[in-house]
């Protein structure tokens, strides 16, 4: 009875894709185990088999020494296994207590007071900060996550699985989360954290189990591991984890945003009086908790989002004296005006590309109108597709294969490749490395660095503060749709940016 959970030779396939191949894994009582691996390495699939969402094709699962069959989430609960998914499963209009009560065994008498008392005791015990009477739609992301964890504990989970819990949190919130996780460990619970952030692995876990392309690579004690040793196990080769940041050379003003205000369709103010300049030859980072206006900011510049009266987005071309107003122009009008504005949107397959089309047709998106013929020209896009496939090492069976069938990293290479090929003057990217493996992420950083050296004004909306601090020359922090300071990427600290992301300063700075 040494192990809380043991997986033995577990295999799971989806069609021809092997998600997990012969994986064996042990989890001890009272330990924090990090499950580390790149996107698509099978971490979530493996844990979904523990929590009853998938059923393994072969292999056995032992919980507390007994072999078990988990074919539904309720089986997992009965065994004391609880999982907090990346996407929360809560009812927005219910209070915290009601969400906890939801789905409890129907044989029990429903007594909301008792539920609340028991939940409050759990919060007390592990130092969760949670208002049990608050409705979910009024909660911040981190509060929702806390609620999910309390919900799982309420059901008597002794083994907790957290799927990428820090992806949506600020540094301060992450620290708080780690504290409660440590409290749970002290109580003898086993916690499995799925993640791909190395420094967090080193900070929180006792042991690290590593998966690579669905295969189990090994488990190491955290005290014996370093960032580079873990990366090597994850990727299978040595990876250079450095970002070259050159000094901006001869910065020229390219974009000037003044008093930009954007309302959502429902009339909610999303961007509030945003002003800043972007210069050629520099990377301007935009930090902020997701949903604080980043998307609308880029879309307003790209001509996809109407702005309120009084807003100005001016583009400075070769003739610095004669800026062009971009607001009110459609993306096509911007292109027709000869303004090379490239935009890598957040939703790659839903906005930047057409998933069901191959590389060639996706190259055509920006160029299909060229020429006077009624028919489309396919030769140039084909050449471009070949070139991007070659230069960026896009892994695809053929340039005709629908891009939705490529891995996330290759999809992004296709999109970034196309945008860079338009020889942009301004290049905007939204969450350019979200979901990408380490190698591809660094490829993207290098590409952005290259563009910067060519004199392109790069705007980089990011979520990983470590990367923002390493990559960007200046960092603009958005909070509640307002600019909460523009800081120097070389001198600022993670804590400073984190604070600005969550606490709006009075009379937020304008530049």
């Amino acid at each position, binding site marked *: 009875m040494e192990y809380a959970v043991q997986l033995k030779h577990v295999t799971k396939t*989806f*069609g*021809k*894709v092997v998600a997990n191949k012969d994986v064996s894994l042990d989890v001890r009582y009272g330990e924090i185990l990090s499950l580390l691996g790149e996107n698509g390495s099978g971490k979530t699939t493996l844990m979904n088999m523990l929590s*009853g969402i998938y*059923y393994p094709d*072969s292999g*056995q699962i032992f*919980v507390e020494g*007994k*072999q*078990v*069959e*988990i*074919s*539904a989430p309720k*089986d997992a609960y*009965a*065994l004391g296994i609880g999982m907090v998914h990346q996407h929360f499963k809560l009812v927005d209009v219910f209070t915290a207590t009601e969400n906890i009560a939801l789905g409890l065994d129907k044989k029990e008498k429903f007594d909301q007071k008792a539920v609340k008392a028991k939940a409050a005791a759990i919060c007390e015990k592990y130092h969760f900060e949670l208002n049990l009477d608050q409705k979910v739609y009024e909660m911040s992301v981190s509060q929702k996550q806390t609620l999910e964890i309390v919900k799982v504990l309420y059901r008597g989970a002794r083994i907790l699985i957290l799927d990428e819990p820090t992806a949506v949190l600020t540094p301060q919130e992450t620290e708080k989360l780690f504290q409660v996780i440590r409290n749970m460990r002290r109580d003898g619970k086993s916690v499995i954290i799925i993640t791909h952030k190395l420094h967090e692995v080193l900070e929180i876990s006792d042991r690290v189990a590593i998966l690579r392309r669905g295969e189990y690579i090994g488990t190491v004690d955290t005290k014996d591991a370093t960032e580079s040793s873990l990366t090597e196990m994850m990727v299978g080769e040595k990876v250079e984890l450095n970002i070259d940041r050159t000094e901006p050379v001869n910065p020229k003003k390219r974009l000037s945003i003044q008093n930009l205000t954007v309302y959502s369709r429902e009339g909610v103010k999303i961007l509030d009086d945003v002003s800043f300049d972007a210069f050629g030859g520099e990377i301007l980072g935009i930090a902020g908790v997701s949903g604080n206006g980043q998307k609308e900011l880029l879309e307003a510049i*790209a*001509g*996809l989002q109407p702005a309120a009266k009084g807003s100005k987005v001016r583009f400075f071309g070769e003739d610095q004296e004669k800026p062009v107003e971009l607001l009110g122009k*459609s*993306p*096509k*009008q*911007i*292109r027709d005006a000869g303004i090379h504005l490239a*935009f890598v*949107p957040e*939703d790659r*397959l*839903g*906005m*930047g*590309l*057409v*998933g*069901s*089309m191959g590389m060639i*047709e996706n190259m*055509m*998106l*920006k160029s*299909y*109108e060229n020429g006077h*013929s*009624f*028919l*489309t020209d396919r030769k140039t896009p084909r050449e471009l597709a070949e070139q991007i496939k070659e230069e960026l090492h896009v892994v695809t069976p053929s340039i005709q294969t629908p891009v939705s*069938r490529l891995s996330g990293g290759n999809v992004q290479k296709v999109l970034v490749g196309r945008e860079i090929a338009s020889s942009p003057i301004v290049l905007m990217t939204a969450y350019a490395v979200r979901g990408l493996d380490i190698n591809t992420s660094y490829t993207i950083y290098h590409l952005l660095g290259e563009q910067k050296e060519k004199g392109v004004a790069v705007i980089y909306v990011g979520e990983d503060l470590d990367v923002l601090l390493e990559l960007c020359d200046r960092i603009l922090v958005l909070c509640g749709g307002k600019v909460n300071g523009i800081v120097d990427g070389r001198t600022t600290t993670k804590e400073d940016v984190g604070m600005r992301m969550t606490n709006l300063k009075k009379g937020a700075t304008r530049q």
Partner: protein
Amino acid sequence: MKEMVTGKEPFVRIIKRDVPSKKDQVIPRVLAILAALVVDALFIFFVTGLNPFAVYGVMFQGTFGTSIRFSWALRDLVTLLCIGIALAPAFKMRFWNVGAEGQVLMGALATALCMVYLGGALPTALLLVVMCLASLLAGALWGWIPAFFKAKWNTNETLFTLMMNYVATSIVACATNIMRGQASSLGKLNMGTQAGWFPSLLGQRYNINIIVVTLVMFLMFFYLKYSKQGYEISVVGESENTARYVGIRVKRVLMRTMCISGAICGLCGFLIVAGKDQTISTNTAGGNGFTAIIVAWMAKFNPFYMALISFLLVFLSRGASEIASAYGLNDFAVDIITGIILFFLLGCEFFIQYRLVFREKTRKEAQ
């Protein structure tokens, strides 16, 4: 020690296939047809007491029995195919045009009006051209109206196009009443002069219909596949956000495409009136506007596959009426026979997309 706790492996699981290969796409369909024929045979034998093989023979005769039957079948085929082609661009754009019936009727009405009121005034060739243009325009208008409302106020196009069918039916009913005047029925238009009737070409009455639709089929194929507008249609259909992102004017594409879709439906009305019925009634479209939806979907909007599916449907329906008259079966029995074939064909699509995995007993014994 091998104590089992909770849960059981589910009896059957549904798993999505990867991209099915050509072989995996063809074999299930062939098997489905064979299975349908077997089930049909059982039905025919046990319920109607007839010899299934004889019945299948008669069914075959429905299309291939005589050369005149074959030409009727071709005529029906191209009518259905023409509407299917008309629907393809709209459906590809994810605009659910279920108003083909009405668009065909409006095209037919425009044709009939030209025949009645311009019949004596214009030389034949010019009259035909005017009829054709009028039908295209009328159909395009009927397709444009719902697209305009969708673009402007985001109305639901399925309901809108559906209701436009009833409006068209009423207009046609009204117009036929005016045209027939005191006569008890409208009868063939320009019976005496045959003005505006398609001449028979190479000795075949329906050759013009066949040629026109074949031409439209090729044009549509190239339009969707190689033209800039066809490309815009695909992008809008796949992702409106992407279309906006690259600066395609979505509303314009919406209206333009529905004009094309409606216009081809209108053209079909022209072919029916000038080339087949030489008259008009509220039944001129005859439900083809709805059957064509099946055609377009089953063919995944490829005009050439549409020709195949149209053939199958026409073959089934002509075969069915042949059986009904030869054996004196009632319509319901015949509907069941064709229904079974369609059921199997559509049902097998599921097995092309997914496969079932049954619980294996062996894995537990092995442990």
